[in-house]
């Protein structure tokens, strides 16, 4: 029997006929990168191939690397294997990867969501035979509300804190969540301040998308300047000495995990806003239906439960171990 078009080895997802990896977790020669989060775009590959909008992001994160880019929908061939990238709707520059060989089509979703967040190009379905999908939130307990409702809540929360003379500190990933929040904050309420890591990444992205004005918090920033305003910070800043400058403050996390009361309390957040850059249960099912795949491989998230469910509705689904993390509440992702 011939080897499958994409296989999982100890370095990453590998395409044998093209001799190229996708989102490898160990250094390899050639690698296609779905998006800029550090569990997908790692150090040490000799050659990176990605979407032009992701190029400045991975250069910012990984320094001097050898990158080539290709537009969405543009087909290119390696050793007779046809590849193309398609928008994944996860964060700016995030792609799904379509691989076609001898009439057989595979799609690797990377991380993705169906809701249009107004910041990155929205997800597009691609017909395929085999699908490799994430399922970070592959449980029926996850249901996202429309983004505008959540953002209304966040702006409302900011106003309430302002009324009490407090600084609002909201935590979200440096790449993706931070800009998504920023894009939809209401600057008429007050000033928007940023943590250094977020300011740097946002500066990189300002060429790609319009965002409200931000003010970097430096050593010289006075406490009084922050009162009543909002601060966007990475999760790792929670509980660090850096945050003391914001006293008195209220904290909030924006994450899919905030759907669980326990998760918010464990992180000792005052508020939790359920806002995720991943598919929820129904989005995963909608997407899988539109992909029309016969074979489904679930990578990270609630893989066991989700694949069991897919089998129960008659699909050929299994799981594969990867080193992708999806959305975590922890801070590892921020290390880069």
């Amino acid at each position, binding site marked *: 029997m011939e080897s499958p078009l994409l296989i999982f080895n100890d370095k990453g997802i590998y395409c044998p006929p093209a001799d190229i990896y996708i989102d490898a977790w160990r250094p390899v020669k050639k690698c296609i990168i779905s998006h800029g989060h550090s569990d997908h775009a790692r150090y040490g590959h000799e050659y990176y191939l990605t979407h032009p909008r992701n190029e400045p992001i991975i250069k910012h994160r990984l320094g001097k690397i050898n990158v080539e880019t290709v537009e969405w929908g543009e087909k290119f061939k390696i050793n007779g294997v046809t590849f193309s990238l398609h928008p994944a709707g996860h964060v700016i520059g995030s792609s799904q990867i379509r691989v076609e060989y001898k009439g057989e089509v595979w799609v690797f979703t990377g991380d993705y969501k169906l809701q249009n967040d107004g910041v990155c190009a929205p997800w597009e379905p691609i017909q395929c035979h085999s699908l490799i999908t994430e399922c970070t939130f592959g*449980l*029926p*307990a*996850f*249901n996202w509300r429309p983004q505008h409702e959540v953002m209304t809540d966040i702006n409302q929360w900011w106003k309430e804190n302002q009324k009490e003379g407090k600084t609002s500190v909201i935590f979200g990933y440096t790449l993706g969540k931070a800009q998504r929040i920023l894009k939809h904050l209401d600057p008429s309420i007050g000033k928007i301040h940023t943590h250094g890591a977020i300011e740097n990444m946002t500066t990189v992205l300002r060429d790609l998308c319009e965002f409200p004005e931000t003010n970097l918090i430096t050593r010289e920033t006075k406490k009084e300047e922050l009162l009543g305003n909002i601060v966007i910070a990475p999760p790792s800043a929670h509980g660090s000495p850096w945050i003391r400058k914001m006293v008195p403050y209220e904290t909030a996390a924006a994450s899919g*995990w905030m*759907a*669980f*009361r*326990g*998760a*918010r*309390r*464990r992180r*000792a957040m*005052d*508020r939790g806003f359920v806002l995720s850059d991943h598919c929820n249960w129904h989005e995963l099912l909608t997407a899988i239906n539109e992909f029309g795949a016969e074979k489904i491989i679930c990578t990270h998230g*609630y893989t066991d*439960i989700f694949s*069991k*469910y897919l089998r*129960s509705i008659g699909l050929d689904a299994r799981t594969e171990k990867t080193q992708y993390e999806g959305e975590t*509440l922890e801070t590892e992702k921020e290390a880069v």
Partner: protein
Amino acid sequence: MKRFAALIKRLDTTNKTNVKVNALAEYFKEVSDQDKVWTIALLSHRRPSRPINTTLLREYAAELARIELWLFEDSYHIVGDLAETIALVIPQTEKKEDEKSLTQYLEDMIWLKKQDEKVKKSYLQNEWKHLPYYERFVFTKLLTGGFRIGVSQKLMTRALAKATEIDEDILAYKLMGNWKPQTISFKELVLDEKASDYLSKPYPFYLAYALEEEPSDLGSPEEWYAEHKWDGIRAQLIKRNDEIFLWTRGEELVTDRYPEFQKIKDLIPNGTVFDGELLPMINDSIGSFYDLQKRIGRRTVSKSLLEKIPVILRTYDLLEFEEKDLRETAFAERRKKLSNIVNEIAHPTLGISEIITFKKWDDLKEIREEAREVKSEGLMLKRRDASYKIGRKKGDWWKWKLDPMSIDAVLTYAMRGHGRRSNLFTDYTFALWSENEHGERELVTFAKAYSGLTDKEFKAVDKFIKANTVERFGPVRSVVPELVFEIGFEAIAKSTRHKSGVATRFPRIIRWRKDKKIEEANSLEDLKELIQ
């Protein structure tokens, strides 16, 4: 209901006591009197009994969410809370038109209990469909049990005091006892001043803090009394108007569960309240807490059990005598009266906790070391001239417990925690070495524990568990035996219910023994040697 759900949400999203008190006080000022009564009832463990069992609840919820039961169960194991899981998996499909009050919902629940399954199902599914997410969660919580939002009865009482400007201690007294939210009005419960209602009412218990310094820091030994700290259930025995009432510290009226006290009813004068410890007697000496547990849950007691494990009250305080509240008199005086009346009654069901005489603090230390031999957990120190206070107060009463017994055990199974810990494996099962019939050493489960580690340690153990899972049994995982923990416990007794043959009391993790290999963990024989 909207207002009550908003209150719960507010209470759930803060860890600050002041914010909670203020939120509750504000709520009490705003809502109807009936809703106030029900809220007090809910926050003082007086919810109506479950109208439906959780098995049916899960079935109805899964059906409405259009998912199979296994998927619902798997989701529940991850979410860690049944009501929250139900609220999450059911999407709100229809807009609600009329708004029902909290009181109406609770009255619904009392009504629902008597309905058949068909009615129950259609009622629940209809409510779930119409309520928005957070109200759906709160509504389901009302059906399933405790809120775990960090609101104690004391905190609720403080908020009510703030809202009504009635003294907090008086309120605590008013809210005790056997009132029913269905039949009492807010005016009767809280606002009215009536003496006749207080027939069954116990006094709020005075609770001691653990002594952390040396007892010699408490001053001169002449100012103090010492007694043993008995390991039973704290209780008040009340005789008023020719009736007796037995209350436990959890403010539960348990008179019917301990019929032995009816025998001494006529011997106790009216207007008497004892404070003491319920203890099981086995062959005329004190049994273990494990023996008492066989009585605790039983609402009706068989004759044979009553003969096998009779329960007594070992008294240590007298709170009311000749219908007079004695709490403000000195402890020494109350003790004197207590000893007179107990001697006069002279019945084995009513004992007395002897005062331990000591001249120097060092004498007391020796007595404490031997506490286990008389089945006590250590000592209580009480100031001779102290009044009987309300709740946990520092200064006049101290518990000076023995250090726990401990043993090194191996982590063998783990389960996800609940609530705050629902995405970490924090509930552990521990095992000790034992020799099986073939002469091989094997690990035998002996206790479960889920407290004692720091958040950081829990995280590290969680990581180990996820990476070293051997098998999964629903929510439980067996793990590679590799980690050793020191497990502490208060008492130990033989047990026929446990595979190990031993039951431990209050097992908890004392420390992670990173320095020990599993071969160095203790054996079941080591543990059994601790049984006295």
